[in-house]
């Protein structure tokens, strides 16, 4: 139980975390003397190159794996008598 509670404990609010992309945006804004909003597009364009946006095989794999996990979780909840919203569109 302690491990599970850990995820929402105060402890996590003490560590400072810096998002890598945010750091890059701030750096560019400072270097160019421009706003974060103006700095963002160029930085984001570079950053997206490191992400598998055009890899449908990878995306589908991740999505389907998660969908399977959700199905299993749904079955578990149904066994417990919990009814959850049916998201099917038909």
């Amino acid at each position: 139980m302690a491990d599970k509670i850990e995820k929402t404990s105060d402890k996590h609010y003490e560590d400072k975390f810096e998002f890598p992309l945010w750091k890059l945006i701030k750096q560019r804004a400072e270097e160019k003397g421009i706003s974060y909003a103006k700095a963002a597009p160029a930085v984001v364009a570079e950053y997206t190159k490191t992400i598998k946006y055009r890899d449908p095989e990878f995306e589908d794999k991740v999505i389907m794996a998660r969908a399977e996990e959700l199905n299993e979780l749904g079955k578990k909840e149904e066994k417990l008598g919990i009814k959850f919203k049916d998201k099917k569109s038909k």
Partner: protein
Amino acid sequence: MTDDLTEIADKVIETDVLMIGGGVGGCCAVAKAKENGLDVTLIEKAHIDRSGSAGQGIDHYEGFFTRDGTTTLENVSNEDWRLGRYGVRYPNLNVKYRLYKCQFWVFEQLEKLGVPMRWDDGEPYWIPFPFVGWERRKTGLRVHWTNIKPILGRAVRRSGARILNRTMAIDLLTTDGKVVGATAVNIRTGEFIVIKAKATLIATGKLMRLYNPETPMPWKYKFRYHFCPASSAGDGYALVYRAGGDLVNMDINAWTFRIRDDLTCSYGSFSLNDGVPMKTYTWDGEEIINPNATRYKQLEDEGKTPIYFGFDHFSEDSHKRLEVAFADERMLSFKVAEERGFNPKTHRYELQDLSPTGFYRVSGIYIDENFRVLRGNEPIEGLYAFGDGSAGGTSGVAGAATGGLLLAEDLPEILKDMDEPEIDISQVEEHKQIALAPLAVEEGVEPLELESAIRDICERYVGMFKSEGKLREGLRRLGSLKDWLGKLSAESPHHITGYLECRNLLDLAEVHIKACIERKETRGNYFRSDYPEIDKDMDGKFFSQRIENGKEIIELREPIPLKPEYLKDAEEEKAELQTADAAS
């Protein structure tokens, strides 16, 4: 007439088109109307460069595209059916159909205005196919729109339209039932402005401020209302209502579990954008399926709340996608996370308790498919509405931009034979008196105090689980707040905004509570504890509310059926698709 007006008003403007609201929809309409040769005036209570729901950016365009680019009746009717299960009903599917029909034209139009519709490699990037069976979500584009508002702002400036930033509409001007313009006040200078217009267009966003925002620090992060910033006081709804137009489905709130003040990655939003859903947990770490209202109530009874989102199962690639989503839509998320030390790789994010948010996509200003505002079954001459504030059945940029562009395309023809508007001076005098009154009140109440009281009534007496006694008590208490409007003071013209917003919120809270009193059933996510069953007589119907000759009218209406030509269109399109499929 104009001479008299100039004695009352600091400025009188005569224009073909008055656009109230400079969000995405308003900017698109203005740029297009100017392109079509019209004289256009835009008023915006904030500044067009960062105002409206898209002020901080947008990361997706839910433009109803399907991957093969089709728009079929099946899409439309499925959506209606799906939402019908949750207690809502499109008042007029023809609007939705018209919006669906032209999405690729809108794509081109937005590109022409300088809006980046394509991904970094120059091609559109379709949102990955996410949940099995969640059909709607294969119909959107992922976009980098951090700066969509400055981009559209530039387009509007280039168009040569008359732009009045920091200018808030007071009320619409009417003559013989027609809308002939509006009065407004500059909230920096206090300048009182009269705008005579052949056509008055309203796109002021969704009503959100009858309920609490997602953050417990509302005044610090006030602008971070989900879907909309602080401007979302339902100004357009109130203008239309007081001018005799109908509001519909005002009993229907949207509700959702939103991440509280942590990151503004909303419930489901990342799954919408990139296909990978977050995990939902009870406070003590048990993973659960995203609960519906009934299940959430159960969790509360079991002491399992608050519930949390976790991103800690994400791959490195998904974490990076999350960052890009923040940069594209709400860069402030980084700042908040930085201030509070949040780390999506280890933290869990508290979800707001179950409570209503703004009004649903089918709620708001009643319009026909030509975006004309309706009074009963008839359009009000000279008055148009589109975007989130209209009950057009769409929300977000797609509905707003499309509505604005389509209407602006029609305007030259509409205005061709329209008479010059005539103004009723007594209305102008009355509006001026109303708007400037708080400047003369000394040591009065601050508008925020009254707004908090209105919101408290809606939270306490309407909320998620409604009952006759609570609703009636809420209405009584709301009535007692009306006198407070006259006690509000404005230290400077800037504070007139808050005062006028309170005036609008008071009217709309009353409309909302009365609609809820009228609807005596439980259906979908509309809960009446004293009427726990579906009322079959309500199937497919919705309430409309207006003021007629000073009297409030509330009517139960049937949706306007799809036009035969739209049905024919859909059938032909489907046949074409089948032929194309067979050929391929």
